[in-house]
């Protein structure tokens, strides 16, 4: 079984791993580092439940090979709170009741963070139409979009 050494910086902490080359970033986080906040939904890049920030950009961690991430900085849902305080986007999801079962929520929040940065860089408007379009890579099977969108808009203003 071909293996490779890889060093990741996950939520600020350095982690040195020896992995089967087939290991995805998602499996490295969940199975090797015990960070089970990022979820495995479809495992094919279609549902967005596995979304993390890789060097600050939102990606589907199920489609990224962990060995390709040498020295990359990875931020997962577990890395968003500061000094015991939830990230404003996490707090906004609670205030807007932006979930039902919660399975897609870590991916929704990481994706929204990345998206808001992208829109800021483009100088694009943060409105309902744009958020719905740019968040289309995150599926909520409970159909909580009607509250997810306001939760995101709530922190952008």
């Amino acid at each position, binding site marked *: 079984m071909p293996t*490779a050494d890889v060093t990741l910086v996950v939520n600020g902490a350095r982690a040195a791993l020896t992995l089967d080359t*087939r290991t995805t970033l998602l499996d490295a986080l969940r199975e090797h580092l015990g960070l089970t906040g990022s979820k495995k939904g479809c495992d094919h890049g279609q549902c967005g439940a596995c979304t993390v920030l890789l060097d600050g950009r*939102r990606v589907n961690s199920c*489609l*990224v090979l962990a060995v*390709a991430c040498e020295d990359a900085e990875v931020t997962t849902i577990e890395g968003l709170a500061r000094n015991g305080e939830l990230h404003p986007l996490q707090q906004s999801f609670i205030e807007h009741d932006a979930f039902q079962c919660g399975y897609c929520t870590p991916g929704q929040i990481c994706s929204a963070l990345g998206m808001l940065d992208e829109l800021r860089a483009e100088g694009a408007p943060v409105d309902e139409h744009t958020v719905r379009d740019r968040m*289309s890579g995150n599926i909520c099977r409970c159909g909580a979009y009607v509250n997810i969108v306001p939760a995101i808009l709530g922190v952008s203003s």
Partner: protein
Amino acid sequence: MREFAYERASGVSAAVAAAEQGATFLGGGTNLVDLMKLGVAKPERLVDVSRLPADIEELPDGGLRIGAAVRNNDLAADPRVRLTYPALSHALLAGASGQLRNLATTGGNLLQRTRCHYFMVSTLPCNKRAPGSGCPAREGIHDNHAILGWSEACVATHPSDMSVALAALDATVVTHARRIPLVDLHRLPGSEPERDTILEPGELIVAVELPPAHGRSTYRKVRDRASFAFALVSVAAVLRVEDGAVADVAVALGGVAHKPWRASRLESELRGGPATRASYEAAADAELAEARPLRDNAYKVEIAKRAIATVLEELS
């Protein structure tokens, strides 16, 4: 997933050397890693080219050179692309999802494989995946398959939005060995549907070049839902109108063929003629006269005609 060895390319020549020994290039992995999970792609060795230089540079002639490793979202957001080549920016943002666009590279987007159901399921016959095994799509599920240029062996379409815009923008693909007009990169299936492009084994795309823009451009994608879906039909168009007449026009269609379909017949019908909806529709009819719809996709002919006319009218 089959076991594989992984290495990161230190440069173009190292990547090409690895590929000449049988390695498969890995870009963002959004398509390749997925196909590996599905058992459709089974490389024994990967050479990662995603960290090769990824710059977008202005060319002396006023054009743009896009490094193959530039990520789709970065290309879409580049101010020069948004201002000068809006069709490209629109096409990129119409493709995939935000997460996938942050991974997908320019070179990888060009080389993504079809999403034909029979190709994606490794236990089914497919001439593209297993040459000679047959094409169940011709009589099976083919509502989103080709209407132009297909063969008895394959009715699949090329899924890229970006490539359609690049086809209309007269882009050139630069490999480590040669320059290829983008419209010649992808091929029609003929009797060898396993070959998506004319690239030789081990040939590495290093950049895509755009000539200076020669008209207004845009991209329109028609699909089953508003976002994160492949095109049923898409249209990239460049148009320049002078005194009510078409001075210059370029149109490429997506979702209709095994390659981005440059509408040459439509263009020659329109050049010098009136810039009116009626003439756009007539030219679209001329282009689509050679369409051979399958049992369940004749709807694409009418959608293509209307989308072409609407896009050209918008640019007039």
